[in-house]
């Protein structure tokens, strides 16, 4: 069996005396997707931040590409794409300038070409010259997705990727995730409720009282719908 892209062992995180995560164990292999479900403040974003190397665990450890996520070398960091609650975009730069900037940081050969290609992929080709501060939240989320994926990451960390998206945006995001998985990228996403993406097998986990509980069943959506968010509790 191939080494997992992400592996955590007894991962815990406390803020002061308040524990947020307790002994979380997670394994995600190449081309697989895990969805972390939980309510507000459950610890989903904390777990994702630890995987991205932005936060240090209080106990246990997280391995990404076999390296401690806290000490990823530049090549390791280059292979991670992250979509967060905040877009990581500069409001006073245009959409194209933002993507070009990140493409340069990720040492992409033709940053301008990559930026314009991704603007087309997320349906913003006509808005490349607009400053991001003029964007709606949904447009910013699409652009942030392009930023996260522009370097063709091996691990994609998506914190509530469908937040603020309209139906077109949901369709675009769904296609992007499916394409990334088909390419062999591992995906770890968070959501408030169970997700289902057509043709994609998602390993569902729930964070409850700080504990990461694997859901007994994975979800493969029926071919009929593009994406369904199965509102309600995961075991319903």
């Amino acid at each position, binding site marked *: 069996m191939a080494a997992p892209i992400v592996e955590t062992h007894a991962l815990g995180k406390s803020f002061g005396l308040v524990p947020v995560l307790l002994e979380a164990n997670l394994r995600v292999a190449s081309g697989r997707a895990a969805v972390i479900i939980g309510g507000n403040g459950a610890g989903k974003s904390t777990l994702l*931040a630890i995987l*991205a*190397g*932005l*936060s*240090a665990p209080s106990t246990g450890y997280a391995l990404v590409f076999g390296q401690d996520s*806290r000490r990823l070398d*530049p*090549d390791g*960091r*280059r292979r*991670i794409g*992250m979509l*967060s609650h*905040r*877009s*990581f*975009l*500069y*409001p*006073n*730069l245009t959409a194209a*300038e933002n993507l070009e*900037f*990140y493409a*340069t*940081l*990720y*040492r992409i050969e033709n*940053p301008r070409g990559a930026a314009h290609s991704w603007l087309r992929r997320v349906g913003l080709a006509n808005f490349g010259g607009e400053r991001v501060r003029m964007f709606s939240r949904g447009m910013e989320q699409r652009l942030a997705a392009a*930023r996260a994926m522009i370097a063709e990451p091996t691990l994609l960390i998506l914190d509530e990727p469908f937040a603020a998206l309209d139906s077109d945006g949901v369709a675009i995001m769904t296609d992007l995730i499916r394409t990334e998985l088909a390419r062999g990228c591992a995906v770890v996403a968070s959501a408030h409720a169970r997700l289902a993406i057509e043709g994609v097998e998602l390993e569902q986990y729930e964070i409850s009282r700080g504990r990461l509980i694997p859901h007994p069943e994975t979800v493969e959506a029926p071919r009929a719908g593009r994406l369904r968010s199965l509102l309600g509790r995961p075991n319903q």
Partner: protein
Amino acid sequence: MSAFAAILSKDLRLELRSGVSTIAMVALAMLVLVVLVFALNPGVARGPEAAAGALWIALVFAGMLGASRALMAESENECIRALLISPVDRATLYAAKLAASAIFMLVALGAGAILTVLFFNLEFSGALVRLAPILILGVIGFAALATLLAAISGRARGGELLLPLLVVPMFVPALIAGVRASTAALSAAPMATARDWIGILVAFDVLFVTAGYLLFEHVIGQE
């Protein structure tokens, strides 16, 4: 384009579009100079010593604003997190932020130097040319120190208030050396008399640029 050039040109582009940092720094430098001109005895305020002192006080106050702004630009939309998970190493990030802060400060201080000449009845002469490298050394040292400390104080609650308390005491050796060297430059004294003071400024710059380059990754890192 290298990561250093990309971050620096992005910061300069953002600053050209908003002008917030530079305008605020120029305004603050001008205010400091105006206050000092009115506060000092007119007899005292005519000498190069007072002018040099006033200019360096303006550098400190304007610099504090510029150093915190350069990193603050990354807090909008939490862009700093994107930089931290990118393949850019922290030392490069530090160098780019230092360079951006230094450029903003130099623009403000250039305006400050012209105002100093006007307010303190000095002459536009070769003295200003001799002053330029001394100010550049001061700006580099201040930007190196303040960028490093802004990364530390930015993680603390009320960090912006903490920054001046950390920066000013540590900048005192460079401040003394800078004022003495600038006095020599403005009074047309032989620059040999300022050699030791300039040496202190160079040593200060080397110390804090190196410290920032080595320590930045430890202070900007994880939550």
